[in-house]
């Protein structure tokens, strides 16, 4: 990841200096009578790289959706960089330095790669309603170019996104997440459906990210997850089941029983 791509910090609202990037206290999300996640409490330090593991239906993506504001939690509080954002809309959280990628690519199919990344850069800067076209050499256009280069998409800059390969779309997802000086990124299964070579490239992008950017990664591929994370949270049936370092989790008999013995699946 090239450093200048995230060097200049755009407008960031209400930043409160703190050591914890994300703090969840008793977060519960009910869908009718079903608790997708219940009483989740966890803290992620600034710059920390955390993996969230668990079988299908463990509540990992719901957890992400509560953090990003796609869903409001039924109860509990969410603090982002020290600020209570539990009731904030998604765009307010994003402007505070939170980004996410999606399990299924959610891109703008009718727009080009360049426009996609440009929009991601523009979203956290001023001039979102500007009626004036960017000038040649516009700072955000330059930043978008650097990000496109960082994820190896330079040769498809002007291609509509709907014409990209699956692997390229996943790379573009990451470029969008890196746009506009993020401080905490949520990666939702970034390795899903990638070829072995593309996985190696993904691990390179993740480990090369500047140290001040923390992330939480949901990943089924244990190889990827345990190589890019410093700490691991295991979830099971919507609850936090275990926390620890990758080694502790890997060697934990209960985790092995759940994952290798099949658990409840």
């Amino acid at each position: 990841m090239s450093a200048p791509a995230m060097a200049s910090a755009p407008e960031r609202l209400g930043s409160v200096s703190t050591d914890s990037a994300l703090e969840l206290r008793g977060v519960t999300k009910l869908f009718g009578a079903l608790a997708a996640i219940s009483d989740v409490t966890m803290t992620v330090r600034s710059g920390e790289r955390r993996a969230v593991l668990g079988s299908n239906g463990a509540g990992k993506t719901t957890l992400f959706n509560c953090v990003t504001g796609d869903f409001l939690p039924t109860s509990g509080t969410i603090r982002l960089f020290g600020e209570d954002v539990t009731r904030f809309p998604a765009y307010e959280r994003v402007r505070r330095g939170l980004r996410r990628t999606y399990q299924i690519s959610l891109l703008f199919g009718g727009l080009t790669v360049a426009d996609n990344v440009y929009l991601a850069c523009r979203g956290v800067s001023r001039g979102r309603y500007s009626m004036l076209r960017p000038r040649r050499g516009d700072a955000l256009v330059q930043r978008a170019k650097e990000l496109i280069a960082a994820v190896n998409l330079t040769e498809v800059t002007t291609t509509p996104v709907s014409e990209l390969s699956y692997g390229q779309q996943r790379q573009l997802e990451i470029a969008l997440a890196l746009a506009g000086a993020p401080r905490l990124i949520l990666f939702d299964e970034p390795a899903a459906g990638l070829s072995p070579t593309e996985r190696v490239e993904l691990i390179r992008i993740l480990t090369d990210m500047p140290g001040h950017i923390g992330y939480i990664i949901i990943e089924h591929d244990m190889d990827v997850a345990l190589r890019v994370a410093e700490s691991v949270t295991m979830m099971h049936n919507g609850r936090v089941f275990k926390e620890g370092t990758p080694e502790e989790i890997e060697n934990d008999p209960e985790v092995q029983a759940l994952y290798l013995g099949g658990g409840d699946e």
Partner: protein
Amino acid sequence: MAVFDTTEPQTAGAGADRAWWERIPAAWWALLALLVVLPAFANDFVLFQVMGWTFILGMIALSLMFLAGYGGMVSLIQMSVAALAGYMVAIFGTSGMAELSMGLPWWVYIPVAIVIAAIFGTIVGALAVRTEGIYTIMITLAIASAFFYFTRQNYAIFNGYSGFNLVVPPQLFGVDWRQPVPFYYLTGAMALVCYLAVIYVSRAPFGLVLQGIRDNPRRMAALGYNVTAHRIAAYTFASVIAALGGILLVWQNAQIAPGTAGIPAVIDILVIAVIGGIGRPIGPFIGALIYVLLRTFSPDVLTAIGFEGERFKLLVGLGFLALVFWSPDGVLGMWDRWRAGRARAGDPLTGKGGQ
């Protein structure tokens, strides 16, 4: 064309580095030249009734194209916004209803009409943007019909059923702008300005964000955009275009009445936009020309073959039906497919060559 056109910005040469007039295809210059010299050989009826009306309806449909094509919001309120601007011109300016019109000068009533129409369009937008698809259509249609009945029953402001007559453009620079040739150039110039504004804004951050919201609103929120506020702002922009069309419309008819924004007129704007194609800003003008030609000449054709002249709506309806059946993206879509077909005519294996 994109925010940035080339992959290698340092290389001077093709594409983005050409001056803007070189990037416009010759066919567009030819069309523009034809429109400029048209008064030399077209009669007054063609200039005033056919072309003037085409430009006006095209502008109102263009405001719908902006919302539907770039924003994914099918709004049926555009004709009501236009009619409200027309009413405001009659009320703040001069009309045959001297006791209701205030008789203010043009440089007051034109901006006031645009601002009031834009506020109205923005409020409707604020109500409509929280809904999607068919519900947006229903909400805007409901407000449009409420506007129609309100103007018909309100005599204190809108003069009810009869509306306002003798609403004419100001005699600026000693020109009677309601004469066919000046009116043709006035409407043509306004249509061109609105058309270029839409093209320009579609590639500015505002328009790009709108297209992002059309493709994926949830993702736009996840990039830091306030989707609701942006959609409402799009209604404001579209309302200004519709208001300009509405002002020209009241000048062309020299009168305005509730029927101007009746349900048939509201639907006609949708039909025009769909016939032309909502993919690009030129579509509404193509649709408006087809609509105006059908509307103007089909009574004669029908009478000639022994039908009643009033049955022209049947022709419009059948044409619309045929079009949405064979080309749901309008005349523009047909044109694009024809060009793609010609381009493919080269090498049958690679699809290269040909055109």
